[in-house]
């Protein structure tokens, strides 16, 4: 069913339509939050809060076509609020992290390690966590959620040029982190 129609039904008081909406968006929001925090409990909490806020505010949504941007914005703002609430313990700046840890923390074999597929996800997740929040958000939305620059700009309420700049520096920083960790991978070591 068309999302805009679904939103209109909810605005007319159809609670069953809201259940359909949750079913449709649940995994996307959870995935976004999980990529942001790399933590299941945080992701669950953010997902719950996002849907509560969505439920409370959906009747006032003037442009149902923009629901996608709106719900991602809610989730992103909740993630940032959670970081503030937790005193930013959940995120470390790139420079600080590299200074503190040097090569990949807790993995003695890292300098010589060739990435296995099963490790890749964990390592990339750790690398993303070292990025500034705004760069991480853009990478997640672009790379994992596959949104257009225009859509991301709409979610973050920033100009497209800012989004592109954040993505550019985000990708560079991620590469730098992985290189600092001496991660060897066919894709990374071709240049």
């Amino acid at each position: 069913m068309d999302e805009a129609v679904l939103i209109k039904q909810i605005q007319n008081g159809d609670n069953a339509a809201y259940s359909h909406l949750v079913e449709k968006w649940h995994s996307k929001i959870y995935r976004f939050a999980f990529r942001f925090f790399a933590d299941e409990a945080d992701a669950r909490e953010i997902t719950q809060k996002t849907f509560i806020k969505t439920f409370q505010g959906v009747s006032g949504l003037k442009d149902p076509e923009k629901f996608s941007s709106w719900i991602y914005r809610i989730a992103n703002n909740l993630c940032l609020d959670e970081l503030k609430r937790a005193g930013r313990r959940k995120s470390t700046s790139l420079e600080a992290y590299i200074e503190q840890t040097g090569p990949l923390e807790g993995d003695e074999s890292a300098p010589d390690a060739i990435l296995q597929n099963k490790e890749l996800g964990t390592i990339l997740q750790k690398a993303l966590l070292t990025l500034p929040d705004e760069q991480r958000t853009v990478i997640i939305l672009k790379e994992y959620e596959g949104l257009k620059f225009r859509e991301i700009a709409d979610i973050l309420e920033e100009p497209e040029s800012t989004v592109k700049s954040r993505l550019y520096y985000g990708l560079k920083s991620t590469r730098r982190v992985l290189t600092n960790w001496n991660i060897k991978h066919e894709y990374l070591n071709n240049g």
Partner: protein
Amino acid sequence: MDKNDAQSRLMDYLYDEMEPAERREFEEILHDDQDLQKELDDMQSMRKLLQEDNTEIKPGNMLLIKPDRDPTEFDRSGSAKRGKIFTLATLAAIAAAILLSFAVFSFMNLQISHTDRGTLISFGSETLPQETNEPDQTEEYITKAEFYDMIDELQNRNSQVMATALQQTREQHQQQMEDVIQTLTTYYDQRRQQDLILVSEGLAQLEEETYYKFLQTEETLEDLIFAFNVQQTDE
């Protein structure tokens, strides 16, 4: 093309968000600018690596509680207003009901009086019963003995109920213990059977291996004896 513009176009090119003409133009720039080409290669390799991450992120089931309020009730602009209207209407209804009650009661000549024996509400002329210090002959009293009998009976019943409950609990515990013991016995019996099978298999294998070793030893000895005999014959 300044640095910011280059970054922006690089991102557009990388994520295929360029018009064909613009793309061709950018490819020409890339061809002439080795640094930019190198940067693009780095970015592409990083992208490929990110795309390699196929971690499955599955959300658990979310508990959805059917809302008892319509979502439109949460509309911030309307919620306060609706609440106010509701409160005013309720207050008006309560006030009207109280006024109506007073009017009806006064019409029916409602009398309310309070005595030591309680509150008396009556309609029409007041006809309060005469209060005396003498006990009411119609009321029934129980004697002290009857009272104690009643207490005894209650105690008996309570002890019976308690005894029954205790008995039931004891039986339940007994049953649970028997079940546990039965399960354990079955488990140990099965383990024992399995161990016995393993030991028997181990012994059979050992026996077989010993037999073959014995045969090998015999063959070797025969070969040695044969060789020794051949040597003696030659001498």
